[in-house]
């Protein structure tokens, strides 16, 4: 069997999802954002809800998410995506509304917004990318930075006495009665990415049931900020980030 026999349209088993635009992503090589964008595009495509989905993009590297997924988008002020999503969902209750936020956006300046959106039980999806660093502004310490982790503002490693402890925001939100589905995933390997996709799909399905907020944390890498190659960053994440942020479902009220 030669290459021409295999390379036929009917033999395609995987290709770029139709919802991803042809714009070249501005993310660094190996950045987890691209993979998560793709999974969201696949889920929206498979559920057939392209014309019913509104995304809220954050401030941070993923501020330009609206350039890459072909759906309706709004751009929120720093950390305020859950507030904008609340308004959008309440005005258009038949739409699927999701926010896409990093850890600098959600766990720092936007902590109040996410906690109150969760406690109000808004029927939205929150995708939370946690790479433990401020990627866009030059690798400064974030609230989720691990103890001992070197960043441009903690060059000798994060010290609990000086900088405080990392926040496990996902576990905190699981305590709130307004949340329906809380999970933590990653996209560094193919099995992990497939599981993350199922979790994102479940979150979108839950958001249409009117049972509360669905929250998907993706433990991600920032290889530029961490000063590692993309493959080394994935390995470092497995060895260090998973200890503090273990993947798995944390809360599911329909189980």
């Amino acid at each position: 069997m030669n290459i021409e026999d295999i390379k036929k349209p009917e033999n395609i088993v995987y290709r770029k999802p139709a919802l991803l635009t042809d714009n070249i992503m501005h993310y660094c090589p190996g950045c987890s954002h691209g993979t998560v964008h793709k999974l969201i595009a696949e889920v929206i495509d498979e559920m057939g809800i392209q014309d019913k989905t509104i995304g809220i993009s954050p401030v941070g590297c993923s501020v330009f998410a609206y350039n890459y997924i072909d759906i309706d988008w709004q751009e929120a002020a720093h950390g305020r995506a859950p507030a904008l999503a609340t308004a959008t969902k309440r005005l258009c209750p038949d739409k699927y509304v999701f926010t896409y936020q990093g850890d600098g956006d959600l766990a720092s300046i936007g902590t109040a917004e996410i906690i109150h959106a969760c406690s109000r039980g808004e029927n939205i999806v929150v995708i939370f990318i946690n790479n433990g660093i401020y990627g866009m502004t030059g690798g400064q310490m974030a609230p989720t930075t691990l103890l001992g982790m070197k960043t441009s503002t903690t060059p000798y490693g994060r010290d609990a006495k000086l900088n405080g402890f990392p926040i496990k925001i996902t576990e905190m939100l699981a305590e709130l009665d307004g949340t329906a589905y809380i999970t933590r995933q990653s996209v560094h390997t193919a099995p992990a990415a497939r599981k993350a996709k199922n979790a994102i799909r479940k979150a979108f399905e839950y958001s249409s049931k009117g049972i509360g907020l669905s929250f998907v944390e993706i433990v991600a890498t920032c290889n530029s900020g961490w000063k590692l190659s993309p493959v080394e960053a994935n390995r470092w994440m497995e060895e260090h980030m998973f200890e503090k942020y273990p993947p798995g479902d944390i809360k599911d009220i329909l189980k």
Partner: protein
Amino acid sequence: MAFKGIIEVDTQRCKGCSVCVANCPTGSIRLSSKVNGKGYNYAEMVGDGCIGCSNCAIVCPDSVITVYRAKVQ
């Protein structure tokens, strides 16, 4: 039942992060010694070991890989 696969890489969009290389179970991908228009060593298929499992394509952050898969008679 054995499968045979082929990957097609959009070489001009590939950023050469090599996450696909690390995720290939049969060692059928490598970074090319040639570079694309942006100066990245892009991914390419090597040998005939590809089984079309799509692992490389699903982890590709820039979605540049198309996977073909056919049954071997």
